[in-house]
């Protein structure tokens, strides 16, 4: 091969089209904002129905998770993320999708080694490092306070 790996890297970079950054950001902003606004609307509705402040937050989370899992089951959430990117994967609905999708996919391998073992295939790292990060923040808070 008369092209070095370094030279080839430059050729590949030139030949590879970039992601559409501006369009992706705009879509993420609109859809992510819409999901959050919807959450805020639910928050107000639960408040009007007489839920306490603590209860309101929990009910919003539960409702959004339920809806995202349902939409995942209907096969539409991946289309939404394809359109909106981080706008649909960063909110709590994206987390629900990350748990529901492997649960559906690996059901074929049974409820123990399939659903049970693989359900947190994608969400697992988020939980592990989310817990770790909260511990670190907690420690800092304890000493700095």
């Amino acid at each position, binding site marked *: 091969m008369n*092209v070095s790996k370094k030279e080839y890297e430059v050729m590949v970079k030139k030949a*590879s089209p970039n992601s559409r950054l501006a369009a992706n950001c705009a879509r993420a902003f609109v859809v992510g904002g819409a999901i959050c606004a919807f959450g805020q609307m639910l928050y107000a509705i639960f408040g009007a129905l007489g839920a306490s402040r603590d209860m309101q937050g929990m009910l919003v989370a539960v409702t959004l998770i339920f809806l995202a899992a349902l939409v995942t*089951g209907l096969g539409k959430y991946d289309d939404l993320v394809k359109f909106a990117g981080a706008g649909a994967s960063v909110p709590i609905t994206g987390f629900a999708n990350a748990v529901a999708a492997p649960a559906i*996919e690996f059901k074929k391998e049974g409820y123990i080694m399939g659903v049970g073992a693989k359900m947190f295939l994608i969400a697992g790292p988020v939980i592990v490092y989310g817990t770790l990060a909260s511990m670190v923040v907690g420690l800092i808070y304890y000493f700095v306070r």
Partner: protein
Amino acid sequence: MLKRYGGQTVLFTKPVGIMAAASVVGPKEGEGPLGTQFDRVEKDPMFGAESWEKAESEFVKTAADVAVKKSGAVMDDFEYIIAGDLLNQSTGSIFGLRDTKRPYLGIFGACSAMGEGMSLGAMLVDGGFASKVLCLASSHFCSAEKQFRFPLEFGAQRPQTSTWTVTGAAAVALGSIASGPAVMGCTTGKMVDMGVKDAHNMGAAMAGAAADTIAAHFVDTGRSPDYYDAIITGDLGYVGQELLLQLMKKKGHDITHKHRDCGIEIFDKDTQDTHSGGSGCACSGVVFAAHFLEKIKRGDINKVLFVPTGALMSPTSVQQGESIPGIAHGVVIENV
């Protein structure tokens, strides 16, 4: 007489006939530009099975049945079946061919499986070890996503350099024919590692191998691109094609007007959202069987260098930071 030419090529003294070929694809491929040319378009990507893996096996089984039927022979006439796919332990091929009760050779060459299978099959026939060999290659978008990337319903954006795994299976029946397309020889590819680590840019990972094999073929045989009516790669896609053409020019061959890529032919990137093109073992197989082989039969093109390409990687190798070696196997097909 030694049939070996140069470092990587064999040329047969007697052409090995392509008795028949079959292509069975999924719905998305059926909606593509070649939709009407496939033997069968299955509307249900699950193919009536319970899982993506079982569905892929159904595609394999159906392609085998169609090819055998078109060849005018019966399954028991085939002395060998050679098959390859992308799934762990060749799940697609094995369970699709389990009931054939024929001597089976399972191969892995990633998406180059059709080229590897046809090369080995033609050598078996030319060597006098078999009179009929059935070669198969398969892939399934959903089983490939599940194994190599994410569960199907998990939301993620695909980079523009990524390719779309073709759902389907192809089968080529090799044996003797009176006239028509035949395998004249093959150039077996070396693994070529260009240092690409991006599993979403497999065209770039494979272009070096394709260029290496095509150039080796010219060196070994003393031929030039002018000898061929078309040089057809497997699944380089738009990114890989651009890189291949550049690499070939650096090697002193301009194949711009001869080059076709099955991954580019199978989907319409503007309407089907497939980004850089199609990929998977089935990609080169079904496009060759349904499209290019028919063109050769009609005499539109007569001499073809068919070069299925593969990216030799696994999720584990990528996660462990390995770069992706490419491979490409050249098969010479001519009208006799």
